[in-house]
């Protein structure tokens, strides 16, 4: 405990000065406009090498803080609508830079596929899905969940089956992790089935069952049942056109 005199020793002018200063400071700050991140303030990011220099040897920490900063742009509570105001080219460039700083980080791709790709603007949705696809190709085994989500968005939101098929096919082709769930593994098959490419879907299910990649009994039964259903449909319908 410091050896101090009681407050009564402080002169009245000093107490008044302190109180006045505090009141003015609070008043000044309270009347200042609230800081806001406006969409138009999002400029192009600097080069990755410059960001690395600025990180002072902590690129991962910088990537994390940059992601939180980026997310604050026009993210109004309860509404994702204002994302439409963002310059998506700059946004993509920032996300790419953040991934360059921290290539194992998942946050940028989560934000790309779940926040920025869900705006009600098809052009922006497509550009963000394409960004997710390009980034997936750089590290398929780590980034497959975001491409799977992109495939679902393409199928259900954009109703672009060709795009969904492209993503699902990439997922099937490039992802090599052993614990890839069956729903992701079979995504391409079911999209082909929805597109009425029954013969291809049948061959793919057969191949998947024969490959031994599916070990779960229930999954095997489900796929087997689906295979038989497709074969039934094939018998009833005319052959596919090439």
């Amino acid at each position, binding site marked *: 405990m410091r050896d101090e005199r009681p407050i009564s020793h402080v002169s009245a002018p000093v107490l008044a000065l302190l109180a006045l*200063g505090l009141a003015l400071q609070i008043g*000044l700050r309270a009347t200042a406009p609230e800081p806001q991140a406006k969409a138009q303030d999002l400029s192009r990011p600097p080069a990755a090498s410059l960001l690395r220099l600025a990180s002072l040897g902590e690129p991962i920490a910088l990537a994390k803080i940059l992601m939180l900063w980026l997310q604050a742009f026009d993210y109004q509570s309860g509404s994702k609508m204002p994302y439409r105001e963002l310059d998506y080219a700059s946004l993509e460039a920032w996300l790419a830079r953040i991934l360059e700083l921290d290539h194992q980080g998942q946050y940028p791709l989560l934000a790309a596929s779940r926040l920025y790709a869900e705006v009600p603007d098809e052009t922006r949705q497509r550009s963000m899905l394409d960004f997710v696809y390009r980034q997936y190709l750089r590290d398929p085994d780590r980034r497959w969940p975001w491409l799977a989500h992109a495939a679902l968005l393409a199928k259900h939101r954009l109703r672009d089956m060709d795009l969904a098929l492209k993503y699902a096919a990439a997922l099937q082709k490039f992802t090599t992790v052993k614990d890839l769930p069956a729903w992701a593994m079979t995504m391409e098959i079911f999209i082909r089935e929805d597109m009425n490419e029954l013969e291809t879907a049948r061959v793919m299910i057969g191949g998947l069952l024969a490959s031994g990649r599916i070990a779960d009994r229930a999954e095997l039964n489900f796929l087997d049942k689906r295979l038989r259903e497709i074969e039934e449909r094939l018998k009833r319908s005319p052959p596919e056109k090439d």
Partner: protein
Amino acid sequence: MLRHILPIARYTLLEALRNRLLWLALILVVAGLAFTQFLERVAITESNQIQAALLAALVRVGAVFMLASFVVTSMVREFNDKVMELLISRPLRRSSYFLGKLAGYAAVALVLALIFSLPLALFATVPRVALWGLSLACELLIVTAFALFCVLSLTQVMSALAAVAGFYLLSRSISALQIMAANPLPDDPGAGPQLVNFIIDAIALLLPDLDRMTQTGWLIYSAPPAAELVRLLAQTAVYVLLLCGAALFDLQRKNF
């Protein structure tokens, strides 16, 4: 009162000169200019803007660091040499001593702001450099007053410097923290985000908005509007007033 304040301010300024603080400032300017010359050779375009931006950022941080270090170490030396105790044993008010020291350090701050602004005129127009320099002077005045307040309260080099560094970094980043805290995820229903937001807003009320001062954009893009300058001057006056009140409050309670 002035007859006590002015001599103290004068010997504080003299101490800065004898400590070769101004030489150090000139060395920093020369090093900064050499660095920007190097950048000019590697930049494909906007070389003037790159030079201005990087030199401004370098000297801004350099000025704050030099000034805070000088204030803290000079005051601690006075404590250790018992100069302060000798002075206040004389018929001299504690407030006169404090205001004399503050005036001396403020003069050093203004000289540093001038030294660090002048080389920027090589890369930006003089009116813009003048506005930037004015803002730097205001920022340095706040840092000076805060460093003096910290060292009078804490009386240790390390703790006072750490407090100044924390204050400066927090003041420069508080707006970004406010933006992040004000925009929680929409599906977070708890009271936590509101509480965090409230705490950060409360802290922001007590800090000067240094992040709006001395912006590099004023040098290379456009000068600040008049309202912004008025606000900057008002913020400086109010915050220095507050810090004077807090430091005098602490000084008058101190037992020697």
